[in-house]
């Protein structure tokens, strides 16, 4: 197997006395969806934030293509090919869907310190934005203000923006959050499609989607990794049943 795109080694984050993420070592490969599941408060979003640079780790390393990126700012990490979508929709509401993606795509230009030529004349950037919108199936809604989009469409836009930055690894934090049946199915289809070109980390609560998509599963509880393996292994594991899956099935 080729080297991991992203690898964490004993990654830890303390908030005061509390270890939100504790000694986590994971690997993410291209053409593989590595899902991270666990009960609320398990540290999944904190882990995502550590990988994207939105939070700084307390100790441990994060290797992107073999280079330690722990401590780098979010913008530098993004420029190195890490794309992240947020659990709570984090788009530019006053802008159109197109402008949201265009702004994302623009970030890949060597510099945006250009003061004269209109932004819309940068055809490559606009093309890239439309490509990203088309990939998630939103091209027909391109001129709508993001605030006018439905919740599901906004989640799609969230992903489209990340795709417009042409990342090598996607960190997806609950992309299916708040979606109904049909929207979820479409999102699952999209995620499946994206797999071959990206390494993907998927944080999700929707167990049907997780088991349909994941090539590898990691279960986190209270900041630590409880178990990591193939979907079948995880499904069969007694420890996981007790800690998480059992209670999930009861609630669903």
């Amino acid at each position, binding site marked *: 197997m080729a080297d991991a795109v992203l690898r964490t080694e004993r990654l830890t984050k303390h908030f005061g006395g509390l270890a939100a993420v504790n000694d986590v070592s994971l690997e993410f490969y291209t053409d593989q969806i590595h899902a991270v599941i666990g009960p609320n408060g398990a540290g999944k979003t904190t882990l995502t934030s550590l990988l994207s640079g939105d939070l700084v780790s307390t100790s441990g390393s994060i290797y992107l293509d073999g280079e330690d990126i722990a401590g780098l700012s979010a913008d530098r990490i993004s420029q190195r090919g890490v794309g992240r979508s947020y659990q709570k929709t984090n788009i530019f509401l006053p802008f159109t869907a197109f402008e949201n993606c265009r702004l994302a795509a623009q970030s890949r230009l060597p510099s945006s*310190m250009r003061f004269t030529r209109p932004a819309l004349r940068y055809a490559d950037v606009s093309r890239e934005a439309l490509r990203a919108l088309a990939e998630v199936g939103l091209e027909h809604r391109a001129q709508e203000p993001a605030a006018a989009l439905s919740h599901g469409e906004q989640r799609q836009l969230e992903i489209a923006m990340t795709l417009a930055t042409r990342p090598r690894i996607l960190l997806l934090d609950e992309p299916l959050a708040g979606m109904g049946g049909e929207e979820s199915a479409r999102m699952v289809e999209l995620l499946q499609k994206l797999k071959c070109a990206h390494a993907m980390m998927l944080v999700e609560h929707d167990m049907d989607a997780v088991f349909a998509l994941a090539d590898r599963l990691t279960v986190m509880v209270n900041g630590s990794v409880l178990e990591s393996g193939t979907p079948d292994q995880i499904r069969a594991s007694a420890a996981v049943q007790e800690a998480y899956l059992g209670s999930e099935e009861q609630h669903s």
Partner: protein
Amino acid sequence: MRSPRAATVVLLVCLLALALLPLVAEKYYIQLFTKMMIMAIFAMSLDLLVGYSGLVSLGHAAFFGLAGYSLAFAAPQYEAANLWLSLPLAMAGSGLLALVIGVLVLRTSGIYFIMVTLAFAQMVFFLFHDTKIAGGADGIYVYAKPVAAIAGWEPFTLENHTQFYFVVLVLLVLVYAFLRMLLASLFGRVIVGIRVNEQRMRSLGYRTFRYKLACFTIAGALAGMAGYFAAAQFGFVSPDILGWHQSGGVLMMVILGGMGTLNGAILGAFAMMLLELGFQGLPAMGGVDIGKHWQLLMGGFIVFAVLLLPHGLLGLGRLASRLLRKPAEEAADG
């Protein structure tokens, strides 16, 4: 929503009116409108910060005033400065000050940004007020207006108040066009993105600090242009030009006019100055010289405006057009 074409028409009509003003008005009004246009440039430069990048600076007068002092230094006693040299120099000086202060203040945000911008402007105020660099609290005079000579040839003279007016009008149009171009550029899109959601911009890979700093610097340089001409017109510079009443005043213009629209900044500048004049001209009432205490009325006006006009004066326009459209729509339906 108002159509862009209607807005352009209104703008062009206003521009025409401004261009024709000197033909019908007497000296007092020409000079008054010159002053208003200078403040409009000042207000637009602040709108770039407040309305478009979301950086609320309460110390913008530092850059305005520094340029005024730059002119005073370039035109000591009865010497006249050369416009083509001293104006760029003044703007560069203000821009440089903005760059230095920006590096420090842009480390903060929100309320703290407001506080530190005020504090640093105050520092610059003290520099000119407490020292002998430039006449201290007494200020210095700019006896001679800048000369627009290039190798002996003078295309116009600022000593003539009508020509001064047109020079400022041209600059107003140029600054407006420059800012429109800037806002449509790659840089402008980043700036607006930062205002809407800075954290997302960073996670998209933008080094937001740089863009904010560039914006702060450009705004400072443009404020310098306004300050230069303010000093040239008034003929006198004192530390108050850097003071926080100046900073607060221009911030009021931007907010009350309607932020993030450029047109609103111009409207705010004109409206506030007319209001100031109006209040100052009021007769004494009940033994109190209202005119002398016009700031009382201004303060009251501001308080009411904040409470009643959430989108500034331009918001009034939108409200009016909405109210006017409703009966028309009802007529169409009925």
